[in-house]
């Protein structure tokens, strides 16, 4: 089944980013087709060169490096959210496809379940 995960929180200060990614990895480990959508402040999870150790936090960008291992290939980022934060599409830590809100709506309509984090 196709499960979509919306990731809308920044990487640190709260646990949403970490726990959302963990849930996505679990779904993939259980053999489901997983797609990720980084939106709003969630796009900050994609910034390279994070120094989570300075916050004594778990580095969520490391978890993103593991997506390949879990066969999660469909990774999308909301273009408007990137633009609003002055982040270039080619400056992200992992390979992802920039999409607009219309494309996101269309793709979510094809997912069997949507998980929000």
């Amino acid at each position, binding site marked *: 089944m196709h499960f979509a995960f919306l990731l809308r929180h920044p990487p640190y200060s709260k*646990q*949403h980013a970490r*726990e959302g990614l963990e849930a996505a990895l*679990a*779904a993939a480990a259980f053999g489901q087709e997983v797609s990720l959508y980084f939106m709003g402040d969630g796009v900050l999870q994609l910034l390279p060169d994070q120094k989570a150790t300075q916050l004594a936090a778990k580095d969520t960008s490391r978890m993103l490096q593991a997506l390949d291992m879990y066969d999660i290939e469909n990774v999308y980022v909301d273009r408007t959210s990137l633009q609003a934060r002055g982040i270039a599409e080619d400056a992200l830590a992992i390979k992802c496809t920039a999409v607009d809100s219309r494309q996101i709506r269309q793709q979510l309509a094809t997912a069997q*379940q949507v*998980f*929000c*984090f």
Partner: protein
Amino acid sequence: MKYALLVNGAPLDSQAARSALYFSQALLAREHQLLRVFFYGAGVQLGNGLQISAQDENSLLGEWQALALAGNTELVLCIAAAQRRGILSATEAQRHGKPPVEMLATGFTLAGLGTLVDAALDVDRLITFQG
């Protein structure tokens, strides 16, 4: 229709568990089936049986327990998220070398993320309540 809920927000510091409860009550009133509610993130705090509400305030926990009975609904806390926040069953506490206090509220169980995935596979709709 068959539903499952994912509740991520803390019970007191967000509206998530309260809104999810009202949504669940509406589901049952319309004769939908609510298979499972999976509490994740700070949402697991709802399953802490040691919480005490003031006498003149509604007990959110009590209302959830009543709903679970009425709807034959499973209330599940993510075991990893609960452990990180110090919510353990007596058995789990003992296993981790802590005093064997039962903190898990009646009607709740601890389980892994696989239980959330299973619920998503079994139902028509999974709805998230965010904090």
